Structures are given as C-alpha cells and as structure tokens.
C-alpha cells in the first residue's frame, strides 16, 4: 500500500500487489454483503441448516451409536450442506434481481466475484459446523484430539463444498430451486457412500473403494481424527484427496462461470 494513491474519483491506485489487494478487498465486500443479505433467506436456512440437522436426526435417533461418533457425522453433514448451499441460493437470486450484473459491470474480475461468493459459503459452513464441536466439547465430553486434523477438515471441506455450490450455481436458473435440485442429485447419494452413517471400516471392500473417491468421506474422516474417534484411510490421504478436490472444484467453478458468461 506504500506506493498507493487515491485518484480524483476516489479509487485506490497503485502497483500490481495493490491490484491483488484490491481484488481481495472487493471479494471481501461481496462476501460481507452476501452474509448480510442472504444468510437468513429461507432457502439458505432450509438447505444449509434444517436439511443436515434433519438428516442427522433421522439417521441417528434409535441407532445405538455412541455420541462421540455422532459429533463428527454432524460436523461433516453441516460443513457439506451449509457450505455448498450459499452459492446456489445467492447467485440465482442475484440473477433474478439483475444484481449479479452489478459485478459484471464493476471494475473487478469475475475471479474476485466468485472468490467473494465462495468466501460467503465458507463462513456460513464454518459458522454452522462449529456449533456441533462446541456442543460436543461443552456438554458431551468430546475431546479435540488433533487440532490440525480438525482445522484441515474445516478449512479444506468448507472451501471445497462452497466451490461445489458455486460451480452448480453456474446453471442458468433464476430461483434457488433450479440449482438445488441438480445439486441434491449429487449431494444426497454422496451421503450414503461416504461413511457418514456407517464408518468406512464397516463397509464392504468395493464400497470402501467407492468411498475413497468421495470428498465427503475425507471430511468425515478428518472430523473423526480431530475428535479422536479414529478413521480408516489416515489423515494424510484425507488431506491429499480433499485438497485435490478443493483445487478441482475451485477451478471448475471458475471455468463454468466463464463459460456461462460467454453465453450472455
């Protein structure tokens, strides 16, 4: 910022590094606006909070699973659903109101816009998913056994799933439902192959091979390691696979929006 100056229009000017900082500032402004505007929209509350908690209760009540095992399940589900729901709620609504055009006519790159949207998903996912951790630690004697694994779980999963939501939001729809429906065709099957309701170690060999390919498997596993419940593949494999998916989802979300923009 040392070489920066403000021009007569009030815009900060400066070097390439400040151009990067400008993109970061704008991305943060977009994320902050999305938080203020869309976090309490019914679609965000339903698909981001109600949906994972209801699924969790449906599959945990009546089953003889120790609570220590249930907390990682809930963390993984809330991270998965909450992070991936913000893009599909925000972007179609902004298309319908034509407020998305504001970003396209502002002097910012599409990358910054998508960064802002992704950040809004990350904060939503982390904000909701930290509640089961706090409840587990405070009321049910859960222990944070591996803080590194838990941080990796939150950081990588929220970014990967938020980018997944942004990627689906490139589908040209003007209501959240138009994006949520195809997204749920992916999200719900993933729940059943990812060791969420049944630990990966208890799955058949071929199901274990399938579960290795699911990003959600590695979120559950990292949450388990974080809370000292133990996993199947090991945290290194979890981080590598989840990191790989994060890169792929971020890249594809940008690519899909660029392609969608070309059709405008």
């Amino acid at each position, binding site marked *: 910022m040392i070489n920066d100056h403000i021009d007569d*229009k*009030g*815009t900060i000017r400066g070097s390439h590094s400040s151009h990067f900082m400008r993109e970061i500032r*704008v991305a943060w402004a977009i994320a902050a*606006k999305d938080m203020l505007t869309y976090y309490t929209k019914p679609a965000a509350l339903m698909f981001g909070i109600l949906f994972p908690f209801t699924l969790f209760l449906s599959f945990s009540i009546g089953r003889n699973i120790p609570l220590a095992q249930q907390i990682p399940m809930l963390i993984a589900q809330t991270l998965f659903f909450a992070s991936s729901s913000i893009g599909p709620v925000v972007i179609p609504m902004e298309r319908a*109101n034509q407020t998305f055009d504001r970003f396209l*006519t*502002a*002097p910012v790159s599409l990358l910054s816009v998508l960064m802002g949207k992704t950040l809004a998903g990350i904060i939503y996912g982390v904000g909701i998913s930290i509640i089961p951790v706090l409840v587990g630690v405070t009321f049910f004697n859960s222990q944070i056994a591996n803080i590194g694994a838990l941080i990796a779980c939150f950081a990588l999963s929220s970014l990967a799933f938020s980018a997944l939501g942004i990627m689906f939001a490139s589908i040209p729809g003007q209501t959240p439902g138009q994006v949520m429906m195809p997204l749920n065709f992916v999200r719900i099957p993933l729940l059943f192959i990812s060791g969420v309701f049944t630990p990966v170690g208890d799955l058949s060999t071929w199901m274990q091979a399938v579960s290795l390919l699911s990003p959600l498997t590695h979120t559950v596993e990292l949450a388990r390691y974080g809370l000292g419940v133990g996993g199947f593949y090991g945290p290194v494999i979890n981080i590598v696979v989840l990191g790989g998916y994060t890169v792929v989802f971020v890249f594809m979300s940008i690519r899909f929006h660029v392609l969608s923009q070309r059709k*405008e």
Partner: protein
Amino acid sequence: MDNAIEAKGLTKYYGKLLAVDHINFEAKKGEIFGFLGPNGAGKTTTIRMLTGISKPTEGTATIMGYDIQRQPIEAKEQMGIVPDVSNIYNELSAWDNLVFTGRLYDMPKSFRENRAEELLKMFGLYERRKEKVQLFSRGMKRRICIGMALMNRSDILFLDEPTSGLDVQSVLIIREMIRTLNQQGLTIFITTHNLEEASQMCDRVAIINRGKIAAIDTPERLKRTVQGLQSVEVAFAATPVNALKDFKELPNTREVVKEGDKFRLFTDDPSSVLASVWKYSQNNNLKLITVNTLGPSLEDVFVNLTGIRPTTEESKRGAQSK
C-alpha cells in the same frame, strides 16, 4: 480523443439469431446520445455489450479509449450503469446500497461515505437513508439505482429506459437530473421507447431496427429527412364516433391516426385539410377545441425508418370497427 463511446462492427448472435448486426456509431464526449428502437431491435443487447456484461460475437467497443474486452477494468472504471430494472438490494438500506457500490469500486471509506451522503442529499433521500429500500416507491428505487451508478464519479452514464413505468413526478425529476448531470460534463447514453423524451433531451440519436442502425443524427436533422410529412392535429369537445372513417375520406389526407382524444391527419397540403376539417365540424355540429398544424416529429422519423407506429393500436381498432 473526442469520442466517449465507439462501436465498430459490433455484432451479437444468440445461437443462430442475429440480435445486433455489425453496428457502428460514436457518442461524443459530453453529449446525450439516444438509442431508439422498437422492442427486440437490439437496444439492450447493445448496451450489454458496451458495458461488458455480454461479449460481442464480432466487433469492438471502446469506452473513453479503453477496449471493453481487452481492458475491461479500465473501461468499467469510466462508466456507471442504470439498467432497465432497478437492480438494487432490497434487503439493504439506501445508505448500504450506495456504500456497497463504493466498495465494489474500491473507494476508501471516507470517500464512499462522503459520496453516498452527497448523492442521497442530491436525490432528496438522505432523511430516509437508514430505511430498507424494499419500502421505497418505484421512483425512489430508480433514484437510488442512478445514485449507485454515480458513486464512482463516472465519465459516462448508461441509462436503459430510465423513466419507463414511473409516475409523472419521478419522470420529471429524473429528466431534470439527467440534464443537470450532462451540464456537469457527463456523457449520457440513453435507450428509450419515449420518442418525445429523446427529442427533448438528446443531442444526437441513433435509431436501431432489427439489429441494424437505421439512422444517426441530431433529432432536428432527422426530422428534416421527412420534411414532406406534415400533419393537422384536431380535437373535439365530444369525440365523433365515425371521425376516423370520415377523415380518411377527406381530400388530400394521406393517413389518419387517433392519438388519445385527438386525431392527426397527415397531408402534403395542411391548409386544404384545415378547411375540410372546419367544414366537417360545421356540418356535424361539432365543437373544435384544438387545431394544430405540425411538422414531422421524431416519431414520424421512427415510423418512416422502422415501419412501426407506437400508437397505432387505437387506429387499428378504429379501422377494424369500420
């Protein structure tokens, strides 16, 4: 560089549909440039290409010398955009809408807050700055939308149908605002259906039809291209039932159009038509309340070039009843 906007061979295909067909025009710095055309002519597609929302299939557009495709950031810094729909955040307050726009343009806090205050005061909305804009009237939302477009002290303001669907008071406020901004040096690019508005406000107009520019010139020069098109406008205290049919039978009358409670008789010989109308009113015991002889309007130019008359629905119905 005298031109604020330059379009060269600008073309847009949607699949096989040719929406804009190799259009060329320039808007000079400091002028109000009107872009007129019927629905589906390509006005909004053009504005979307000029503002970087949509990529042209062919051709280039420059904004204050910056290519919108190759230098989008620089080009976008020069412009403010008011789309046909007031795209504001209904969940935010008037203040937050303006301040957020300032953040999109990376204006420092003190600059954006001072500018937001200045604009809200200018638009008479400062007292209501903390209210969510969803409670505002359509005209107030339009003013907020224009305010957002002015946050970055742009050199060019794009307005897509700025007064469409607004009440008379809001229309007058917005027109006056546009004139004031133009007097302060802002280049205005305006698309409108309202030909009277374009005639009153624009320094130059382009008429686009089926994706092609049909004419570009000052409103008065365009009117001169159809100078032969003179008309007599008449209104009666009570509108006669068969007037449309009767007037078409008057000598030297080429076309008759009913415009509200008035009739417009197109002719090459206004004095003879005036005499015939006077005689008609006497014979039918009708009281004439308005008689005007009119030169060609921008609407006549528009009709001449596009073959579409915006006010022909009533005359069509009149012709059908015949």
